[in-house]
Structure formats: structure tokens, C-alpha cells
């Protein structure tokens, strides 16, 4: 074998050994515990602060609004899509207040006319001409429109 080749093989083996040693220190201990990721990541994510709670949690206290919602057209909306993330409120309902989206633009987020959106998904309304002088919630109950 020519000397060049021998020297290169030596060099590459050194590289590979260094790589293996470094790898030993860099790979986190819990890696591969459950799959191709750091096992500890699961606990870390689970310990993060919760933001959204889902409708069941709200209905525990606001049961009348819950039934109102279920019976109306807004039945499959989440409370929190209008009121914002509710975890803090669930813990401290009296001190932490949620949003009350009462403006016309708040309803328009979903109901304004948009040619590109399928008509049968959400009923569209010509916001500029549909009773422009008053707020939507003066005529429509947001929980049972």
C-alpha cells in the first residue's frame, strides 16, 4: 500500500474515533428512550403552562351558556376561539378576565364576504351593508345567533 494511502487511512480513523468520542458526550442520555428523540423532552413539554382548556372545562361553571351554544348555529365553535385562551381564567375566574369580543370586526373575522372561501362552510354576510349602524350582538346573541 502506498504511503499516502496509509497516512490518510490513519488520519480518517483518528477522525472517526474523535467523532465517536465526541458523540458519546453530545448525545443526551434520554435519547432514543421512546423513539428518535430525547425522552426527557416529553416531560419538559408536559410541564409547560397550559393555555387552552376546551369547552368541557368552561361548561362546568357556565352551564347555561354551554347549553345555549350547543343548541344554536355556533354549536361547533370553541368558547376560546372568541374569548381567548382560558387557562388562567379557569384557575382564577374572578381576578383574571377573558375577552368579550363585542365589535363588528370580531364577528367579521369569520363572517365577512370572501370569494375564496367555500359558501357552505360559514355563512357570509355583507358586513358593510348589513345594519351598519349597530353592533352585531345587539340583534344576534353570540352564543345562539
Amino acid at each position: 500500500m502506498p504511503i499516502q494511502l496509509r497516512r490518510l487511512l490513519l488520519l480518517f480513523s483518528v477522525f472517526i474515533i474523535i467523532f465517536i468520542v465526541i458523540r458519546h458526550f453530545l448525545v443526551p442520555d434520554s435519547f432514543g428512550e421512546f423513539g428518535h428523540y430525547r425522552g426527557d423532552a416529553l416531560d419538559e413539554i408536559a410541564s409547560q403552562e397550559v393555555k387552552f382548556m376546551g369547552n368541557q372545562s368552561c361548561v362546568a361553571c357556565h352551564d347555561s351558556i354551554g347549553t345555549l351554544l350547543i343548541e344554536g348555529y355556533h354549536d361547533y365553535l370553541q368558547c376560546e376561539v372568541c374569548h381567548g385562551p382560558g387557562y388562567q381564567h379557569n384557575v382564577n375566574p374572578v381576578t383574571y378576565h377573558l375577552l368579550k369580543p363585542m365589535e363588528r370586526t370580531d364577528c367579521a373575522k369569520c363572517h365577512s364576504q370572501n370569494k375564496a372561501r367555500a359558501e357552505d362552510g360559514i355563512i357570509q354576510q355583507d358586513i358593510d351593508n348589513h345594519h351598519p349602524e349597530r353592533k352585531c350582538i345587539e340583534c344576534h346573541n353570540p352564543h345562539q345567533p
Partner: protein
Amino acid sequence: MDPRFEHLYEALTKVDGFIYPNEIDLAWSVLIVLYPYITGLVAGAFILASLERVFKVKALKPTYAIALLTSFSFLLVATMPLIFHLGKPLRFFEILTTPHLTSAMAVFGFVYLWYLMVVLLLEIWFDYRHDLVIWSNQGRGMKKWIYKILTLGIKDISTEALSWDQKLGYAVTIIGIPSAFLLHGYVGFIFGSIKANPWWSTTLMPVIFLFSAMVSGIALVMVIFMLVNYIRKEKIDMKCLDTIGKFLLYAIIIDFALEALDQVHRFYVADESFDTIYLLMSGKLYITLIGMQIIVGTVIPLIVLGFMQFYKPKVKIRQWLYFITGILVLVGIFFMRWNVVIGGQLFSKSFNGFTSFKLDLIGAEGFLGAAIWMIVPFLILAFLLWLLPPWKKISEHF
């Protein structure tokens, strides 16, 4: 307005028609445009070097070492745009320490290392070994020591050892050609395999990327070759330049044919995404696709280079024409990458709307941040040309 929705309204001003929420902001911006651009330059420059060495186009000899060093200096930077695009750049090494062998993106680390360590470094080393030994005996100071280290302590320059250099170097070049194809075909593969995106998902993608890589690499070496000669106040070897021009022309023809094939196919098939794609090409991408990529980057160079195959103007004019076409081609291929990467994210996968993209000036993902990664390779190249000047080489390969 409620501050919690402010960003939403601002973001919605960028949108035409209907678009899914996660499509408003582009996930891949100019750095991801640079990445295939730079890897393309690497692969293309290397293939030009192989033309000389493996396919025995002897007229290209003066560009051989320059092409290799160009390829090498761009390869060193190729990963930087990717790393700086990451949210956590310092974690990039994890892709190597915990390799995921069935992920195409994760495999890039290995394709890259293979190309860097086994192909380019070795080919340059075998090519320069004889000279390194000689230089390490001549100079003084730092430079001498760098040469000494680079020889890896081998002083043997007997004919037998040198003929081994030749044989091994040749073998590496042969391995290098498929590797260069792999390196850049791979980049096309990544885009081509995203099946939800009709602008990307075509089997032709790797091949198109490969040939556009050759086009840009050849143009780059041509421009650098002329610049190096200009700075050194040497006369340019016109036979060599004409030959590069000829191969550049061939590469552009193939590349253009493939891209045209891709588009014609899209027009003819006209599947459900076509209306959107047509709007994209005639609207948001009009300037960069029709103007920059096709007219500036392809048609004009085709005409100029084609013309020069039949009629050769005076040397001075020819040099200018080559130089300008080289630059045009480089600009054109940049916009080809732009149109693929940015274009593919401008339309909604619902095919009902578009978002828009504005390049910032500052920031890692801005114009200046990207410009850095286009300047650094030239600095590396200048350093390499100083350290390993091809014009001072004594040894010659066959």
C-alpha cells in the same frame, strides 16, 4: 383593535384570496434560496474540473485547479445559510450525532461530509502533494509550516510515489462525478419529493437542479478564471475560454430543454393546480421567472454564446462578452433557485389564494445577512489562491 389580533390583521394585508393560516409567512426565505445556489456552484465547478481530468478536454487545463479550489471554497460555506436559518443554530451538529437515516433532509450532513472529506479535499491534496513537498522545503515562517502540516509528513516524491498520486487522484475524480451528481441531485430530490406542492413535486427536479448546477458552476469558474488572469495581469488563454464558453452553451441548452419540458408538461397536463400555477407565473413570479431567469439568464446567454460558435469577434470584445454572459448566467440561476424556493411558497395549497414575500434588508434572513454568505466564499478562495497558487505548480497530472 384588540392588541392580540393586531398581528393577524397586519399579516392578512399580505394575502390575496383564501390561504391557510400557516401559509401566510414564508418558512423558507432567502437563505434557503442561497443553499441550493451555493451547492449548485460547488457541483458545477467540480464537474468542469472533471471534464478536464476524466473526459480529457485538455484545453480546459488552466482552469482545473481554479475550478477545484472554487468548488472547495464554496463547499465550506454551503451549510452556513442552512445553519443560520435554524431557530437554534448551535444545535446543528445534532443532525450528525443522532443521524436519522430515513429522512432525506438529515442525510444531507453525510452527503456533504462525503463530498468534502472524501472527494474534494482528497482530490486537491493528491493534485498538490508534489508541490506541497517542494514548497515546504523552500519558504520560510508560517507558510512553510502550513505546507509541512499539509503534506501530512510525507516527503516521498519518488516517481513511484508520484504515480500513485496520479492514480489515486484519478480514482477520486471518478468517484467524485457521481458524488457531485448526488450532492446536487439530492437538493433537487428534497424539493421534488414534496408531493403536496405541485410547483416542486416533479421527478425531473433532481435532473433540472443538476444541469442548472453545471450551468452556474461553469459560468462561475469562467468569471473567476478571467478575474484571476486580470488581477495577475496575465493574458487570458483564449482557447481555454472558448472551450469553457462552448461547454457553458451545451449545459445551458440541456438545462433550458429540461426546464421547458417541465413547464410544457405542466401546461399540457393542466391538473387542478394549474390555474393557480399559471397565475403565479404570470403574476407574482413574472419578473423573476420570465424576466430574470428565462430572458436574462437563459435566452440572452444562449444567443450570445451560440453566435460566438459561428463568428468569433476580436479577443477584447469576446472577453467582455464572455464575462458579461457569465454574470448574466449566474444571476439567472440565482433567480431560478429563487423561483423554486420562494415561488413554491407563494400560493396556497388550497389553490385559492396567494401570499406575498418581501425581502428584509437586515437580520440573518435579510439581504445583508444573505450577502455575507455570497462574499465569504470569495475571501476563502482568495486565501486558497494565495496559499496554493495554481500558477506556481510544478507537477502536472496526465
